[in-house]
């Protein structure tokens, strides 16, 4: 239908047919002698008696008779008698006239709308400017408000008119009414707030605050006044009785003449006063200095103020109630904060609304365990947002858990004792946080992992053991499992934990022990880690033999008798049957033990590695070494799957491998096949678990899955995704780099499509027959709890509207730019309807409007009458019915509809519902069409 309309519309416009019509009044001017009259079709209709005549316009013709100008109607009668020295034909509603050397303006009745008192008149879209020589005034075209012509400069700022007199002082007008005289500085943009109705202005060099209704609410006696605004003021429609805050400085702040970039700061002694007003009530609190602790990007006040008087610190809430503060801590940009009450720590949202309370709550910080004292060392770096560590109980009975600020609930078991975090960076440079814990209430120990990406669910692994090895291994946790009497080795991925295996004994390469404490010359203790080896990797002891796991998860067979640190930090010596070889801990490549002495590795000047051995047994072994051997990797296009000793591995298909350590000595995999790009291989380990390795052999997705297969999901620039299965029905998604973006906990994962059926860079997930949405980076947009989810996609520049529906008739929606994801952390709400950047909740005669981008409540008012902003027109609601109104407030479509919405892509059309029938309404002429007619 849309296409048909466009086609018709287009062809109509292109026709552009000429029309031979005359749009003017048909009377023609004729001249007889030196007099003018009017004819119609050659017949005289108004006799030639005028010394000048103009054509009829607006039903009137300007004519001149006896040196005076007036206006006649089509009968030749005077509509406006000839009384002007000069005049203008009517081109519109008004005409310029001149009398006694001054000009003014009349309407079509001849009444003056601007008195004939000026030397000239100019105009723009909104105003007439009246001139008296060089001085000007202004008359508003709509309201008729006149500002007299006595100013040498006039400018407009919102509803203020700022007029400069020849003496360089200013008069300030508001809606045509003079409100302040003799202001000595212009009013900068920031110093007038239309919604607050306040102006910061200066007289005689001192600043005060003028309220449009109440007059001077802060007298003009301060050196400087600053405004602190709250985000509530950003909504132009709110009728809320707003509060505002000003900070007045006693010291004079005079801009240095020679410093145009002066920012208002001086070294002068100052006292600041806060003025708070709710209506007319003003309180004044004086402090020595202050700090606004929380501001939005626009500089609005969104948090609280800390102020000092002497050595006491006071903290305010948004209402500027100051209290002497004991403890208050903000959790970064989320604007949650924790207030310490008398015996509880209260977690509050940004509005200071209490959400929960605990005996103690604190931001997660990076902590280290002191092996000597068992104390945690606080690194003062907040990690793990949006999580808190919360405590219940006191001292020795204290229990700890992790609290999710977004979900507003405790998300971990309660643990006895402490909980601490450390930051891990994996081989891809991705950061995750690992939380080590003491024993849980059930007697378990364990640890958590949380991806750096906000919105990643926290996962934790519990262990029925109390003998965790103290360790600081970077990529592994080794936990002793007393049930099996084995050491379990876990690899920490970006968003998950994978068990690598269970062994008789496992060590991380760096460990902390009592022996590592040394004392310096002043007797101060220093805690040194015992570096068994210089790089992080895991040594496994199994059945009396040793094996190694590299940083990237590559593992040797447990066949070595001894493992010894090499002088080169990237290598360890391995010994088997009296022969020595090498293991490269970064890549996991092995040089099979075949040498009588340990191999010396040295780094050459150019950074390459030189190993001074000669190649042996070239035909039978899968590696190559030369005395000139330098390290470089085989290109991905050269790599292929090869059946090696013990299973499948990767081999290099080029002579370049002569210098490469890439080729694996043993095949670690039961199955190995190329993925959908040349970089990634799907691999199945000996335990029949699937994972993913890259072309260098590095594990990119740990071996934790029952099945991995290509999904029918492709995202531009991200490539094709893989479905990863855990158990029979649990499916998730990995991207083409092998990164897990959807944890395998869903029944179904499909690509999200917009209303036109175009695939979007996000996924619809299904869990327990409910649907949710996750973006391509793994951000949860909608949780899987909806009957249906939808995506409305406007264009590349606008955020998509992701909507979920439940059975409660509410719309659960988020605006989300899928192309450049950025998670919004305000709780998901059910809205009644959504328009543009706003979402609305209608409830018992009250409407609340929320800003989609911030989650902030923009306004709350009665539904008796309100407007919803659109591009070309606004939808207005009156007594519960919907209509359309133009930007000037003219009603275009009366409020008769039970509900109305904008028509995306057709800005001139409103969709209205009346008694269950859907109408398409052209708002300009209020013509409407049913669905069928449309």
């Amino acid at each position, binding site marked *: 239908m849309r296409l048909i309309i466009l086609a018709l*519309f287009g062809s109509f416009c292109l026709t552009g047919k000429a029309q*031979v019509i005359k749009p003017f009044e048909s009377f023609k001017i004729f001249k007889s002698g030196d007099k003018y009259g009017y004819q119609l079709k050659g017949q005289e209709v108004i006799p030639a008696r005028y010394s000048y005549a103009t054509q009829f316009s607006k039903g009137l013709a300007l004519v001149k008779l006896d040196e005076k100008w007036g206006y006649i109607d089509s009968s030749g009668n005077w509509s406006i008698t000839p009384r002007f020295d000069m005049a*203008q034909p009517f081109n519109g509603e008004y*005409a310029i006239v001149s009398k006694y050397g001054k000009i003014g303006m009349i309407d079509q009745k001849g009444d003056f709308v601007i008195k004939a008192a000026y030397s*000239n008149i100019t105009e723009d879209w909104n105003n007439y400017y009246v001139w008296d020589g060089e001085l000007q005034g202004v008359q508003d075209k709509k309201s008729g408000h006149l500002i007299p012509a006595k100013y040498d400069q006039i400018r407009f700022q919102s509803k203020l008119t700022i007029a400069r007199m020849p003496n360089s002082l200013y008069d300030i007008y508001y809606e045509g009414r003079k409100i302040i005289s003799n202001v000595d500085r212009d009013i900068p943009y920031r110093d007038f707030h239309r919604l607050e109705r306040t102006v910061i202005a200066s007289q005689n060099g001192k600043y005060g605050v003028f309220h449009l209704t109440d007059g001077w609410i802060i007298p003009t006696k301060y050196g400087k006044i600053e405004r602190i605004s709250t985000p509530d003021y950003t909504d132009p429609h709110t009728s809320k009785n707003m509060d505002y805050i000003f900070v007045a400085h006693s010291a004079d702040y005079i801009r240095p003449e020679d410093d145009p970039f002066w920012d208002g700061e001086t070294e002068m002694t100052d006292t600041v006063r806060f003025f708070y007003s709710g209506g007319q009530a003003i309180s004044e609190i004086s402090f020595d200095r202050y700090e606004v602790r929380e501001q939005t990007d626009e500089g609005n006040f969104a948090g609280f103020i800390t102020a000092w008087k002497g050595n006491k610190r006071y903290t305010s809430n948004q209402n500027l109630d100051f209290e002497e503060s004991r403890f208050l801590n903000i959790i970064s940009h989320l604007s949650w904060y924790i207030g310490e009450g008398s015996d509880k720590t209260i977690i509050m949202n940004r509005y200071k609304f209490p959400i929960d309370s605990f005996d103690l709550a604190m931001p997660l910080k990076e902590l280290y365990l002191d092996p000597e004292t068992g104390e945690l060392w606080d690194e003062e770096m907040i990690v793990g947002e949006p999580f808190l560590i919360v405590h219940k109980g006191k001292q020795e009975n204290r229990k700890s858990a992790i609290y999710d600020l977004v979900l507003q609930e405790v998300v971990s078991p309660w643990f006895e004792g402490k909980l601490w975090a450390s930051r891990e960076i994996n081989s891809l440079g991705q950061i995750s946080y690992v939380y080590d814990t003491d024993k849980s209430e059930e007697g378990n120990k364990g640890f958590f992992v949380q991806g750096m990406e906000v919105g990643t669910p926290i996962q934790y692994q519990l262990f029925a053991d109390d003998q965790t090895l103290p360790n600081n291994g970077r990529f592994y946790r080794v936990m002793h499992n007393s049930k099996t009497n084995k050491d379990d080795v876990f690899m920490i991925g970006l968003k998950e934990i994978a068990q690598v295996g269970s062994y008789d004994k496992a060590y991380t390469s760096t460990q902390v022990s009592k022996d590592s404490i040394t004392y310096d010359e002043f007797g101060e203790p220093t805690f040194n880690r015992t570096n068994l080896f210089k790089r992080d990797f895991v040594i496994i002891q199994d059945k009396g033999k040793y094996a190694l796991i590299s940083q990237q998860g590559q593992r040797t067979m447990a066949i070595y008798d001894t493992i010894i640190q090499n002088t080169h930090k990237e290598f360890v010596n391995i010994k088997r049957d009296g022969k020595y070889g090498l293991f490269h801990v970064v890549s996991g490549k092995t040089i099979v033990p075949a040498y009588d002495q340990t191999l010396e590795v040295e780094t050459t000047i150019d950074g390459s590695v030189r190993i001074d051995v000669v190649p042996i047994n070239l035909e039978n072994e899968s590696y190559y070494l030369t005395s000139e051997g330098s390290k470089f990797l085989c290109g991905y296009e050269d790599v292929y799957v090869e059946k090696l000793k013990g299973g499948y591995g990767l081999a290099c298909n080029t002579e370049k491998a002569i210098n490469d350590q890439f080729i694996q000595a043993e095949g670690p995999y039961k199955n190995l096949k190329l993925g959908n790009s040349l970089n990634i291989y799907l691999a199945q380990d000996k335990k029949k678990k699937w994972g993913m390795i890259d072309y260098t052999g590095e594990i990119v997705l740990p071996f934790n899955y029952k099945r991995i297969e290509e999904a029918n999901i492709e995202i531009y620039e991200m490539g094709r995704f893989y479905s990863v299965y855990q158990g029979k029905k649990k499916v998730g998604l990995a991207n083409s780099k092998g990164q897990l973006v959807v944890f395998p906990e869903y029944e179904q994962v499909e690509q999200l499509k917009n209303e036109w059926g175009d695939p979007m860079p996000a996924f619809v997930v299904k869990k327990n027959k409910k649907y949710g949405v996750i973006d391509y980076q793994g951000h949860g947009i909608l949780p899987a709890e909806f009957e249906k989810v939808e995506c409305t996609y406007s264009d590349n520049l606008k955020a998509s509207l992701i909507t979920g529906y439940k059975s409660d008739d509410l719309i659960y929606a988020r605006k989300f730019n899928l192309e450049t994801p950025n998670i919004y952390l305000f709780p998901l709400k059910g809205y009644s309807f959504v328009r543009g950047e706003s979402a609305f909740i209608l409830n018992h005669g009250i409407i609340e409007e929320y800003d989609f981008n911030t989650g902030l409540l923009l306004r709350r008012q009665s539904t008796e009458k309100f407007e919803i902003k659109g591009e070309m027109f606004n939808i207005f609601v009156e007594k519960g019915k919907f209509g359309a109104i133009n930007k000037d407030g003219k009603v275009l479509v009366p409020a008769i509809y039970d509900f109305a919405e904008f028509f995306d892509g057709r800005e001139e059309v409103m969709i209205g519902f009346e008694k269950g029938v859907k109408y398409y309404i052209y708002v300009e002429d209020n013509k409407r069409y049913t669905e069928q007619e449309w």
Partner: protein
Amino acid sequence: MVGKKLFFVLTGIMMLNINWAQKGVEEVFPLKWKTKIGVTTYRTNMAFHKGSIFIGSNGINRNFKIDSLDGVFQINAQTGAIEHHYKVPFLGDNDVNGVRIANDRLYFGTDNFYFFCFDLKSKQELWKTKMPGDVECIPQVADLNGDKFQDLAFPVEQAGFYALDGKTGEVLWISYGISSHSGNVSPLALDLNKDGVMDFVTSGRGTPNSNKTAGFKMAHYGDYHMAINGKNGEVLWMAETGAGVHASPFLYKRGRKIELLALDAYGELRVMDQKGQVIKRIDFGYDNFSSPVVTKDEHLVIGRGSIDFAQKWFTCDKEGPCYLKKEAEAEFPEIDGRISATTMIADVLNLKRDQLVGLTESGTLFLLETNGKVIHKLKFSGGAEASAFILDIDKDGKLELLIADLDGNLKCYETNSRAKATLGSFR
């Protein structure tokens, strides 16, 4: 690609930081006379008729409703004396921009919704016609109704394209296919449909026709280059531009072929044939307002920019239009100030070859070789929006150079050149 090349040329010149000594115009061209006429605009032209210069004025102030300098000045070409001031006898914003002399009559429109005809001998008003909007451009003339008398054709601001009987001022036809975005574009006249009556090529804003975009341009604004049948006002063809048009089209004869050159506000120059088919496209980029012209040695000039326009520099797809090759020679010299005036082509320096003669709104008269190389950058007081006028107006055998200075004066400068101007006036 062309834009990129031009950018590099421009950047290169800026990096060289050439400090051209800025002489005054009078150091090169002696001032012959100057006459106070008020301010002019980029739509203003000058007409020379029987020893007089005719020029419209926007008065002391373009916005004044009563302004003693509004109207058209007839100025003695020898002395600069005002011979007559054609004034509108009633009040209003009687600014005049384009003027046309034909049939021994003076024709002009105003910002006060009227189009006037004055007799040049008696100086009397012969007729006037009420228009539905401002008439901003230079009216085009041709005999449209076969009475051997020149008629008028012009766009009216936001109200269509009008043809008036040159004798009586009666409306011959109105073409509503175009409303003329701001009434800026002065139409071209040529017989496109070979019916013996001149047709008109113009540009402007029609009715918005869709919600589509044309690349980064908004096609739905309904901007077109178009041709209108001079006989009846029917649209002969329309070519959607996707951007507003302020520059007037230029007619270029390449051998026996006629090419129509038109520039839109996004700087896209289209070379069209007489059927409106686009033959070539060149992207000049933003901030180009003056009309395109072509020199005898085949340089396409817009404002200060000169591009070698020879056919060899174009590469053509089988079906699509031709594009300028990236190695095409182009020069965009560094000249401060916006250029609205159309660059004229004449040998004002008596070098026995043409120069480009352009004006900036900030008061520079620039003289360039046709390939864009700078010869002179000369300072004058107020700047100019109106194009320069070059003609031997005092019949001394040497060209005069006239500049409507924004300081309110029309200035006539002497040159030492006996050449004939290749392009001496705008329309």
